[in-house]
């Protein structure tokens, strides 16, 4: 039976495999096309784009558009390039991701291992925040930030993103810790470890996969956010807003090559996070779904 199956598998294998790989290749090319267009055009001088074929490789290769996009392009009224805004984004994303992940992990720990009356309701309310559209909270958030004196500042943006991130990060960690054996926590209690020590020494060391998931999710969401950045960024707007200002400028020549370079620069960090941590991403998403 098994042998027969293998034979059939081998025979159908050749034809179907060529077919399957063919289709996959076509789709891969299709999805890579935008990146290809952006990359090639960001490496051309402007006349080559306006005068020629979008799909063609550059005749003269130049990094000038990248340099301009990074350090000298006109963003709004200042010719600063994207550099300062890139820094703004980093200064916003890193603490926001770190804090929301930390709080999510603690929430998950408390909700699963120190359950109290009403913990399910609290968790349900936290989940609610995953479904609230950004636009609804703009005005109340503006008033809160104003009262806290954090309007138009990076700490203000960090606060907004932490508040919004806690829902998802709690969901991730709660589900991960729900299948973590409670007997281990009890053993640690008898051994004399306190609330934070159990968390730090017992749970966190085995939380790698879910932390990767959480960090990727938070990083992409916060980095790519435009609405909060545009609304509450003030003088410290993040990369996304700057890119918009670069690309949407309505006067002068449209420097497509600079725009392309800028767009790639804006997408680069998330791309990097996926490449570095992506391997753990699926593993973490699947963790706990099957008893391993």
């Amino acid at each position: 039976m098994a042998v027969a199956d293998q034979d059939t598998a081998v025979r159908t294998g050749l034809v179907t495999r060529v077919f399957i790989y063919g289709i996959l290749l076509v789709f891969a090319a299709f999805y890579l096309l935008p990146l290809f267009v952006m990359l090639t055009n960001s490496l051309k001088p402007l006349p080559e784009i306006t005068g020629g074929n979008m799909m063609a490789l550059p005749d003269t290769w130049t990094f000038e558009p990248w340099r301009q996009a990074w350090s000298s392009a006109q963003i709004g009224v200042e010719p600063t390039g994207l550099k300062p805004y890139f820094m703004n984004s980093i200064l916003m994303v890193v603490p926001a991701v770190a804090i929301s992940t930390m709080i999510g992990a603690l929430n998950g720990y408390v909700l699963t291992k120190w359950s109290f009356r009403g913990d399910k309701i609290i968790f349900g309310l936290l989940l609610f925040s995953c479904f609230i559209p950004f636009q609804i909270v703009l005005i109340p958030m503006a008033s809160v930030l104003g009262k806290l004196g954090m309007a138009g500042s990076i700490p203000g943006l960090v606060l907004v993103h932490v508040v919004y991130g806690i829902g998802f990060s709690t969901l991730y960690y709660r589900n991960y810790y729900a299948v973590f054996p409670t007997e281990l926590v009890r053993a640690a209690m008898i051994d004399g470890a306190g609330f934070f020590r159990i968390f730090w020494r017992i749970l966190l060391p085995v939380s790698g996969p879910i932390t990767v998931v959480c960090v990727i999710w938070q990083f992409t969401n916060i980095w790519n956010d435009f609405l909060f950045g545009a609304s509450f960024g003030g003088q410290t707007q993040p990369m996304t807003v700057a890119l918009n200002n670069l690309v949407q400028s309505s006067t002068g020549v449209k420097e497509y090559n600079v725009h392309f370079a800028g767009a790639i620069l804006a997408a680069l960090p998330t791309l990097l996070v996926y490449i570095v941590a992506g391997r753990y991403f699926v593993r973490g998403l699947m963790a706990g779904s099957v008893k391993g």
Partner: protein
Amino acid sequence: MGFLDIKNVTKSYGAVEVLHRVDISVQEGEFLVLVGPSGCGKSTLLNMIAGLEGISSGTISIDERVMNGVHPSKRNIAMVFQSYALYPNMTVGQNMTFGLEMHGVPKPEREAALKDVAKLLQIENLLDRKPGQLSGGQRQRVAMGRALVRQPDVFLFDEPLSNLDAKLRVDMRTEIKKLHDKLKTTIVYVTHDQIEAMTLSTRIAVMYQGYVQQLGTPKEIYDTPANVYVATFMGSPAMNVLPVRVVMRDGVPHAAVRAQDGAEQYLRFSQSNLAAWDGREILLGVRPEAITDPDGADRNSANIVPLSNRIGVTEPAGADTFVTMELGGRDVIARMRADANVVSGQDFTFAVNMEKAVAFDPASEERIAP
């Protein structure tokens, strides 16, 4: 006043009381086994001793110190869990010394204690491994080692052998017994396995539906069970319990019982106090090993009574042969020598050791004799 005193302890979840007025006093160095079916409250009681569950009313004290509300780590207890609960991210050595580290014991002392216990349990070569690389029996040893390193006042075992395969379970059972003989620490041990309870304990508490049904030495529990539940729970195969009528013959109470052919036979009781039950129905309890072939009967017994009946099924089990017969409308199991000459379907004269018989009140199911 014992070493570990459980006084009038109850446990309720909301309006539901799951443990009812438990009173157990354990002397220092005793091995107490809490045994009962799932849901009888034995693990809850253990967790209350450990401090992992609150006490609804009553007191638990260890060495004359009341433990109600005291944090688990401050009770000087150690617990071995059913799943072993080894920390997966730490090595065996780190697992075993984690408790000492948390209690602020300096490193040289920790190392010394670890070395002693590792030697005692013969796990010195495993100290650098992670729990994931160990076999079930090794994990079991490490879990015990983690408890031993702390040198606690009381050891708590929560079904520690139930995750092991049958052969290993027997081996580890012996090891635990040896360990207790050597260390003489007070142990409270939870299990649903009555053989573990009988072999390990110095005293057994049989629990059922949140009540301690009986507290006593293994021999007391086995020979004079407090009620029908204890009688049938302890022992394998279970004690035969059948309805009989008490009749007085020559001034001595007898059990009148109908064999398969309908003829009434009379088994003389050794307990004269059953005269008060003359003419009434009672429940007669006889262990399988008290019903044998005449040659296999206990020679020290003063009251071996013959019983003629037809043999039902015979089950040779190697060391013994079990014989099933119909008596008083119930299936009754007898335990014969392996080479007893029994053939199913034949009439046979059994020898019943009535000295070991127990009588129960049919209404309350409490023991009335001996």
